[in-house]
């Protein structure tokens, strides 16, 4: 922790600055917005997993009074969602739910009635709706360019894996599977588009990052990026689910262009499961080579992804390759991955991304390796964990790394040593570790920019494009600016959520918000402070750098904070600038981009221990406690950090134990928040938080991400705890009662103890 007196705002338990609005119902979300003349849009979706479209007749729909636009591919043949994918189905449909046509009408009921009037003739074709089927040699080929239904492959070797495996004393292989999963965020997908003016597309929608939406929509509609405006004042959760524009955004824009009015499209409860494009069925094969004394020689992961009907987000495919390098010292790493087409909803990502569900399997696998060696898994992780300054095989650098400290702290706080291997039958304890990049250079830049102005009354306005999806980014940015300027967070007003107004910011994903935008805001505040300090310094005859800013005052270092004539309140100081000879309106700007050519500047690390109880009769699991340590560099706002840990522990345990889209021939059987199971109030474990602060040299005030690192760790810890309780690796998530009963019965029938 920082020394007392070093920082006055940073590190404070700061309640949300927009809390008043949120708890009183004043915060405006996209569906709360009604624009003059607004129409209601609905999408006609394919009822077939695979079919040829023989004809589409929209004439009856167009004739319905109140209908102002009806579109199908014929009305917009050049409109592409991605390179290989028309926005509205052309010639073929490839999954149940694919967008075939859309209507906009003056009333939601008329829009619904219009959908019924669109006549589509299909010729049903054989489909493949599971990964297993898609990979069979006699499976129908879904796309002409993809033999064996393999859309993409990705292969990376770091070091010499073959040699490393050959030199290993022990090589263990395990297989694992994760299902189709979804994000049950509170605010369902919604897009309100106004494309009345052909030179300007305006879109109100919750997003994690405006630029990606701008660029995609601009490209599709033949506009410049700045001709697309995204407005996203309040975002009702994102959890990796709002990083890319989805078809409904484009369709709302198209309908608006055709109708000449704003159009709102809003997901119905089950339609959201299609619109969202969550994670797909995934199969993993982990292989690890170690020496007899427990040193890692080689790590290998082979991952097969169900990409759905279109490979919409190829980035998921290559993400595991670097991840395998972020935790351990190892001689070699191998990654093999492939995207496979199936006749199902195109897949993307969801909370925890690929790292989370990979961890649920990988951590169990590594636990298995440790057990084969007769080693305590915590010791195994410690023995191989990276240290600060580590340079990984993939080129990643870890200036700060508190992984070992996290492991030590959770081992101590959870009573690990007294419990591991010593619990009564069907009680389990498990450990997981993980890492997460704080931003990353995937494109030319990873830039965030910020602007700051100080009014003559001392009130500061901060313009930032970083969305606040609940993680508290706006409050943290205000804290950073307040710390630098020496004022209070409530003196900072945030103007955000509008790409027309705010400076460039890629957004809040890849956990870049606190790190990258935080740095930009810090620079902007420092710029403003330097201008002010220049004027005050000249006034007092001291160097600008000799001035201190804190507690809403400006004074000369070494002198009294309230020295008469030698110190000012912040507001007075601003007045000196504004009312002085220059009449300076103080404005600060900052722009931050990682100086690295690729990869990240900083990584967060975590270790968690979970304790569970399994009912051997029913297979039900109760999570008793999660002890969570996270190296987040510095906790800028510990209150918000705890909130992040809470939500991620909840989500992580939910995915390991409950969440699954049950599939039937390409349709989701449980597309509702009732049947897509999540735990609720009764299932919450006790959570203990341990914040490890390694003060990263690159993060603002040393901070790194905490927005998605913990859930990755939780998934490994809970998975291991259940495996520990039942006595062997559980090869699939979610670990539903019937799956656990199968393991328990199998072990009983073979005379194996529950936990050995």
């Amino acid at each position, binding site marked *: 922790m920082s020394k007392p007196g070093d920082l006055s705002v940073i590190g404070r338990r700061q309640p*949300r600055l927009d809390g008043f609005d949120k708890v009183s*119902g004043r915060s405006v979300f996209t569906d709360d917005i009604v624009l003059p003349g607004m129409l209601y849009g609905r999408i006609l979706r394919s009822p077939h997993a695979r079919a040829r479209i023989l004809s589409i007749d929209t004439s009856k729909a167009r004739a319905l009074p109140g209908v102002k636009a009806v579109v199908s591919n014929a009305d917009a043949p050049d409109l592409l969602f991605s390179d290989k994918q028309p926005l509205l189905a052309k010639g073929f449909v490839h999954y149940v739910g694919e967008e075939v046509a859309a209507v906009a009408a003056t009333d939601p009921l008329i829009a619904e009635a219009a959908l019924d009037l669109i006549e589509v003739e299909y010729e049903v074709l054989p489909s493949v709706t599971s990964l297993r089927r898609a990979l069979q040699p006699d499976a129908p080929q879904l796309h002409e360019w993809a033999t064996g239904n393999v859309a993409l492959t990705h292969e990376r070797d770091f070091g010499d894996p073959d040699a490393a495996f050959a030199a290993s004393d022990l090589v263990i292989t395990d297989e694992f599977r994760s299902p189709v999963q979804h994000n049950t965020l509170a605010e369902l997908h919604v897009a309100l588009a106004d494309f009345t003016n052909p030179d300007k597309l305006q879109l109100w929608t919750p997003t994690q990052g405006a630029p990606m939406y701008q660029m995609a929509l601009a490209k599709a509609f033949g506009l410049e990026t700045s001709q697309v405006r995204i407005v996203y004042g309040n975002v009702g959760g994102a959890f990796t689910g709002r990083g890319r524009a989805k078809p409904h955004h484009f369709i709302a824009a198209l309908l608006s262009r055709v109708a000449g009015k704003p159009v709102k499209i809003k997901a119905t409860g089950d339609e959201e499961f299609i619109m969202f494009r969550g994670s797909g069925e995934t199969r993993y094969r982990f292989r690890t080579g170690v020496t007899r004394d427990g040193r890692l020689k080689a790590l290998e992961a082979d991952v097969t992804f169900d990409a759905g009907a279109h490979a919409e987000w190829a980035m998921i495919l290559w993400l595991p390759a670097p991840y395998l390098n972020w935790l351990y010292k190892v001689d070699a790493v191998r990654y093999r991955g492939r995207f496979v087409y199936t006749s199902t909803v195109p897949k993307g990502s969801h909370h925890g991304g690929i790292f989370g569900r990979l961890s649920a399997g990988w951590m169990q696998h590594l636990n298995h390796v440790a057990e084969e060696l007769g080693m305590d898994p915590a010791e195994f992780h410690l023995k191989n964990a990276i240290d600060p300054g580590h340079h990984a095989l993939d080129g990643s650098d870890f200036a700060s790394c508190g992984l070992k400290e996290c492991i030590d702290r959770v081992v101590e706080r959870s009573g690990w040593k007294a419990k591991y291997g010593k619990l009564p039958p069907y009680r389990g304890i498990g450990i997981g570790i993980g890492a997460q990049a704080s931003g990353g250079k995937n494109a030319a830049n990873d830039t965030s920019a910020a602007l700051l102005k100080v009014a003559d009354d001392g009130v500061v306005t901060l313009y930032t494009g970083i969305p606040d999806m*609940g993680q508290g980014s706006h409050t943290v940015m205000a804290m950073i600016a307040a710390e630098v300027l020496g004022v209070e967070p409530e003196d900072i007003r945030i103007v955000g959520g509008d790409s027309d107004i705010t400076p460039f910011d890629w957004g809040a994903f890849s956990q870049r918000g606190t790190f990258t935008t935080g740095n930009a805001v810090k620079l902007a505040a420092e710029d403003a402070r330097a201008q002010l300090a220049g004027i005050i310094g000249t006034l007092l005859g001291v160097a600008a750098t000799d001035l201190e800013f804190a507690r809403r005052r400006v004074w000369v270092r070494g002198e009294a904070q309230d020295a008469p004539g030698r110190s000012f309140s912040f507001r007075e100081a601003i007045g000196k600038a504004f009312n002085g000879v220059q009449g300076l309106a103080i404005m600060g700007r900052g722009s931050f981009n990682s100086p690295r050519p690729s990869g990240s500047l900083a990584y967060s690390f975590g270790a968690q221990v979970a304790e569970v109880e399994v009912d051997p009769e029913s297979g039900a699991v109760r999570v008793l406690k999660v002890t969570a340590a996270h190296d987040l560099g510095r906790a800028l706002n510990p209150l918000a950090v705890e909130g992040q840990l809470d939500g991620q522990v909840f989500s992580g345990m939910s995915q390991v134990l409950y969440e699954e889209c049950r599939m039937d021939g390409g349709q989701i059987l449980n597309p509702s928040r009732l049947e897509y199971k999540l735990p609720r109030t009764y299932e*919450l474990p006790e959570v203990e938080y341990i914040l490890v602060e390694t003060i990263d040299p690159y993060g603002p005030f040393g901070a790194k991400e905490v927005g998605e690192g913990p859930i990755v760790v939780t998934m490994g810890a809970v998975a291991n705890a259940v495996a520990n309780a039942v006595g062997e690796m559980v090869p699939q998530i979610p670990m539903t009662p019937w799956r656990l009963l199968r393991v328990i019965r199998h072990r009983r029938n073979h005379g194996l103890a529950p936990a050995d």
Partner: protein
Amino acid sequence: MKKGFITLHVNGDAHEVLVSSQHTLLDVLRGKLKLMGTKEGCTTGSCGVCTVHNSRGEAVLSCLTPALEWAGQSITTIEGLEKNGRLAPIQQAFVAYHAVQCGFCTPGVIMSAQAVLNLTPAPTEEDINDGLAGVICRCTGHIKVKEAIRKVGEFGVGP
């Protein structure tokens, strides 16, 4: 009746609204009365973001009840919890204890929490679990939500 005027008393104000049998209470609150604090969420009654209070201060799901059932009835929405711009203790607690993150479910969660307190001013863990089982808060995992309610229950007033 397929369509007709009904009087709804919302947050102490009487409203005469033209309502159809096709409307749920939520449709009327948002669509007709423009009270946007109450949200539309899952539309299946399982997420709780549409929670309002009936005349007894009990939590009800406004998306699952026909509007015409509420003719002449009193309802409280999130907008009705504050008094003269001063937040209710539970609202203050939600801010102080960080029981709010993205805020979309917050009106529904707060109405559910207030309903628990209306029934039992000093709720037990079981009361809180039972009263909040009908809402989903993805961001907080319900953890600080429960803490905020506990604190109001213990101390009786806001922080």
